[in-house]
């Protein structure tokens, strides 16, 4: 049962990693790195907590989780400037228009796995 969305996310991670590991003839995962966008609404602490609970009995059981936070970036549709944005600050520093084109910050990605 998926009681919180961080648990759903970690269960997807375990499914994807297990499949990739089998395809690459790995039997044990040692390291796993994720890239999580800062606007994604996913808390790294909750992911770590869910990870520790969900990996028991899987080939990730002894693995270490690394989470890289991806900073948010917008691109102005008027002047094409790329600039850092926050939830509450999305104005283009050059033309002061509200940025609707968020090009980075919502990532929920698996980056690399290491195993034997």
């Amino acid at each position, binding site marked *: 049962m998926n009681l919180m969305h961080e648990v759903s996310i970690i269960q997807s*991670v375990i499914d994807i990693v297990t499949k*990739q590991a089998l395809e690459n003839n790995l039997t044990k995962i040692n390291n796993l790195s994720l890239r999580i966008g800062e606007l994604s609404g996913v808390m790294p602490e909750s992911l770590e907590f869910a990870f520790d609970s969900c990996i028991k009995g899987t080939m990730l059981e002894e693995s270490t989780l690394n989470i890289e936070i991806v900073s948010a970036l917008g691109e102005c549709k008027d002047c094409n400037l790329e600039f850092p944005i926050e939830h509450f600050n999305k104005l283009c520093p050059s033309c002061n228009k509200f940025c609707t084109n968020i090009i980075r910050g919502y990532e929920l990605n698996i*980056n690399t796995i*290491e195993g034997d």
Partner: protein
Amino acid sequence: MSEIKVVANILHTNEEITSQNKRLLNEKGIYVINLMSSPGSGKTSLLEKIITKLKDKIRIAVIEGDLYTTKDAERIEAQGVPVVQINTGGACHLDGKMIKGALDSLNLDNVDLLVIENVGNLVCPAAFELGEDIKITVLSTTEGNDKPLKYPRMFENSGAIILNKMDLLELTNFDKAEFYKDINSLNALATIFETSCVRDQDQGIDVLCTWLRQQIQFMKHES
């Protein structure tokens, strides 16, 4: 030890199912709303009002997400429109797979507007696409105007935001100017509605319904 570059979207499975749902719903020309809010903000009451106003003009169907009960689905069923209940059994959000199952039990040839009422929660539902045309988030005045600041993603990704329980505004310390200021910095393009669902004295429902019908017509012209 070997390192493998995976670079996979963690929610890939959900997004795959969601795009299948979206394709099917587009083919049928159905406008789909993912209706979200915290528990008790009035999603079901708003929906009852919308159905009452629009059910003679357009064909409406509803998918009701709820942790355990069928209480909301019973209220919608009483309005005489098709409703499918999804019980998540404790999960905090709906996902594409649950919607796919619900779509199987609706006759999609007879629907113009499908409203998916998500599980009451301001956090998790924001991360899961369901194949909707628009996300609409409801906030009620009794919850306080600080909620967009505290739960930005849901408000950030919504095409429309409904400020409900306007009839209680004066009894609360809800600061409307602050609310508009925060929404504007978070999501300047969102259409904002002010409503209340008091029996026989509702406010703002007509404006909301007119806008909804425009969105449906606009989508039908596009396709």
